[in-house]
């Protein structure tokens, strides 16, 4: 381990600028783009340099590990990471922390949470629960007939939101009221195709769970094509500006807003602070989840789309 000490100190401040690394799940999801750009902007503001890396796909633990390792070599002072898997990259995180680097998880918790110095994230179970509670309330007396457009099977966020949604709507996993569930990888095309085929099987749907907004858009297109939009309550998570506009336009009833900008900014600030003073951010910081809808329901706190458009990301 003696070599590693040298590594951290010698390569570290070659350019004088504080270097901060960001590792997201992918480069593709608009949400991660928002994380990247907000972090970049914040780094610029505080005179730091941000190096943004990503896995090749959601679940690319190997790629994320390599990214962490390479950032350590590069001499960064802090690493912000959105782990694809809550346990997958703990070894690499530990190595980074052993070398005195501050590691903060964004968006997704690690398991255990103490594996990182701090976590800045949405409470994804809560976000799912809010989506479920809203849908349940909006359905009123009607018995739910749910289609679930999931993300990546086995993904941490996927599981948390899925479980949260079922809690919120009050259904058990595998309940007959669930007409079908399909993975979409958060891809609009896959979501559309999945929805089309599910509808061919059974079109008596009245509620749709979406892992995120790309999935919601795909599912929505399929519903629209079948003329089924009217009686169906569609929920989503993300709160990107386009998503909020979709809610405003009535394409879906609700989206649960996340605050990636907050995560990125606070993460970068913490990194800069650590580099300057050695002070570490710690613990779980819930960046919040806000229900956005123009059709509020009793029992679920919500904001309207006007508020949403002011606070949305992207």
């Amino acid at each position, binding site marked *: 381990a003696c070599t590693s000490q040298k590594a951290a100190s010698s390569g570290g401040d070659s350019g004088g600028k504080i270097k901060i690394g960001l590792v997201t799940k992918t480069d*593709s999801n608009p949400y*991660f783009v928002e994380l990247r750009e907000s972090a970049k902007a914040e780094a610029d503001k505080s005179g730091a340099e941000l190096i943004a890396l990503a896995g090749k796909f959601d679940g690319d633990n190997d790629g994320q590990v390599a990214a962490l390792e390479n950032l350590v070599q590069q001499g960064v002072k802090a690493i912000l990471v959105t782990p694809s898997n809550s346990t997958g990259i703990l070894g690499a995180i530990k190595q980074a922390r052993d070398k005195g680097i501050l590691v903060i998880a964004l968006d997704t918790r690690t398991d255990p949470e103490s594996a990182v110095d701090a976590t800045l994230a949405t409470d994804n179970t809560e976000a799912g629960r809010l989506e479920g509670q809203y849908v349940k309330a909006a359905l009123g007396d009607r018995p739910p007939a749910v289609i679930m457009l999931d993300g990546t*099977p086995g993904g941490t966020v996927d599981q948390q939101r899925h479980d949260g949604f079922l809690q919120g709507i009050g259904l058990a996993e595998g309940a007959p009221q669930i007409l079908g569930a399909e993975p979409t990888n958060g*891809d*609009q*095309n896959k979501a559309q195709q999945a929805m089309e*085929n599910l509808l061919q099987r059974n079109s008596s749907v009245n509620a749709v769970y979406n892992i995120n907004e*790309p999935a919601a858009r795909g599912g929505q*297109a399929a519903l629209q094509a079948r003329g089924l939009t009217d009686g169906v309550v569609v929920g989503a998570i993300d709160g990107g500006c386009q998503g909020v506009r979709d809610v405003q336009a009535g394409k879906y009833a609700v989206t649960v807003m996340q605050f990636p900008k907050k995560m990125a900014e606070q993460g970068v600030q913490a990194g800069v602070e650590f580099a300057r003073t050695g002070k570490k951010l710690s613990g779980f910081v819930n960046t919040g989840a806000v229900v956005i809808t123009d059709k509020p329901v009793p029992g679920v706190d919500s904001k309207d789309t006007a508020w949403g458009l002011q606070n949305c990301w992207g």
Partner: protein
Amino acid sequence: MATKALNRTSVAEFVLRTPAVGPALALLVAIVAFALTTDTFLRLDNLSLVVQQSLVVGTLALGQTLVILTAGIDLANAATAVLGTLLMAKLVLTGAPAPLALLTGLVVAAGIGAATGGIVTSLRLPPFIVTLGTLTIVTAVSRIYADGQSFPVTDGLLGFLGTRQYLFGQVEVTVGMGVALAMFLVLWYALTRTAWGKHVYAVGNDPEAARLSGIHVRRTVLSVYLVAGIVYGIAAWQALGRVPNADPNAFQTGNLDSITAVVLGGTSLFGGRGSVLGTLVGALIVSVLRSGLTQAGIDSLYQDVATGVLVILAVAVDRFSRRRQR
């Protein structure tokens, strides 16, 4: 020469020599199986949907067929189409007239095809690596250009191929189907009825023989990548008709999916043997499997297991129907 005229077999002969018969048989088997096991599969609206679902990958696969016939492979086709959708949609959103946006998308796609072909032919590099390179580059460029956004399409021209029509008040067809059919006919004609087509097959079959026969091998290969690029541009337009939203993350498995359609259609990955007709059938097989399995109420994970088995069975049917011919 030791031959015997057995004229009664000549109809069977003709049928068997048509290269797409094996795949068509596999398709038929799948359709019949789903017709028997589900009561929704054979409905007209479902069949129409199956065709619609195969349009984008089918179009990508048409271009892919050309490339594979020259013993190449194109890993960047879907990425090219995605960049096309982004250009079309974003340009319209930023105020460009729709026809110009459409044209830009098509031209850029064609340009990527031409550049790929240029590198493959002038440096004589393996198409797998070159298109892997363009895949990486084009995907990154798309993401940089989209800047974390996706672009909804409301323009009539861009969404035109999704326009639905009812024939006989029953059969739902889309403009995209017509375009796909037209494109197929043009390529079929070019491959089987023109000198260019003969050259494409010859170049893929034995490049050295083609060269010694005085064929412009490079020019032919280059033209194939160019035409394929144009086809990918049209695939972009098809995609906007299907999903009126340009998303940099779309069609990530489009390259493999299109190669699958081509190979299921009986075209050899070693070049020089195959047909666009087979490719159309191959693309339909994939859609039929996915739709039929869903109708049969099978969960997606088990659908995957079944699809894997059925895809292998489909080529097996093809091979056996061809072996009888020998």
